[in-house]
């Protein structure tokens, strides 16, 4: 597991799969930016992939439900499904906080 300490030097590459500007997609992006600004300031990139424009891209990361966040880096790859409204769950899912 990546601890907060070991994560401090790493670059984070995140990809958020959205469905246009659906309410849950917008909420997920807003929640993700907030979490990243608080916990990964200056060390993250977010790529937004709009599956309404190009649904074929869903295959790359085996996306089934939208929104889905994929942590590409640091490895291992992790997927978080949903609008990321539960900050605690998001931090645990991204392995920025240990599972209690």
């Amino acid at each position, binding site marked *: 597991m990546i601890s907060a300490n070991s994560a401090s030097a790493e670059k984070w590459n995140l990809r958020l799969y959205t469905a246009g500007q659906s*309410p849950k997609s917008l909420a997920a992006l807003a929640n993700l930016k907030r979490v990243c600004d608080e916990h990964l300031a200056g060390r993250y990139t977010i790529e937004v992939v709009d599956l309404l424009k190009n649904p074929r891209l869903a295959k790359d990361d085996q996306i*089934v439900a939208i929104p889905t966040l994929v942590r590409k880096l640091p490895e291992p790859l992790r997927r978080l499904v*949903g609008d990321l409204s539960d900050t605690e769950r998001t931090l645990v899912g991204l392995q920025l906080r240990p599972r209690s």
Partner: protein
Amino acid sequence: METVNPTLENELQHLRERLQEAEEMHRAISHGEVDAFVVGPGGNGRVLLLANAYQRYRQLVERMQQGAVTATPDGQILFANQRFADMLDVPLAQMYTAPLESYVGLGDRARLSRFLMLSARDSRIEVELARRDGSSIPIRLSVASFADGYATVLVTDLRPMQWPSLAVGALDSIRTSVEKLNRSLAGDAAARDTLRDISEEINGLARMIDQMLDVEAMGGPRK
């Protein structure tokens, strides 16, 4: 001490992660945290939006001042907004599955059919909308989107765009009358001054309308 086969250990770890992901997805779905799904095999997936994902846009379309209609290639109305129903003075519920061509003038129906069959984004035609009371409204149909064989068309009432031209015509007519009056009042200086003032006001109004027409022309070509 019992040793565990490393391959089995890795497989077990992989399956645990897959299970965790599946449980997480189940939780997100049951908590209403997703509003779309990717369905379909392999790279041919399609995105299906849940009804609540459309809600905001639906409200926007329902309340906008332009008419909106989604029709099948053979012209059946699948969706129309309130504004379009108001233009026709027909109850909205009555329009669903009705042929769109029944709401345009007889002379425009063949053109409308071709337009719906060959719809391409940004294509447009102008037709007469046939209202229930027998009157008609000039409208422009513009394709906003075309997907799965269905054209979503914006309906613009062209009457407001014709008003400046009508106003220019009316002003020209008034100007002619004033000039005629001016000639017949050749000997009355006070009346001529008053008429000159009226004439200048008319010219000012005409310039204002010309400017309005220029602004409109910059916003998009008038067909």
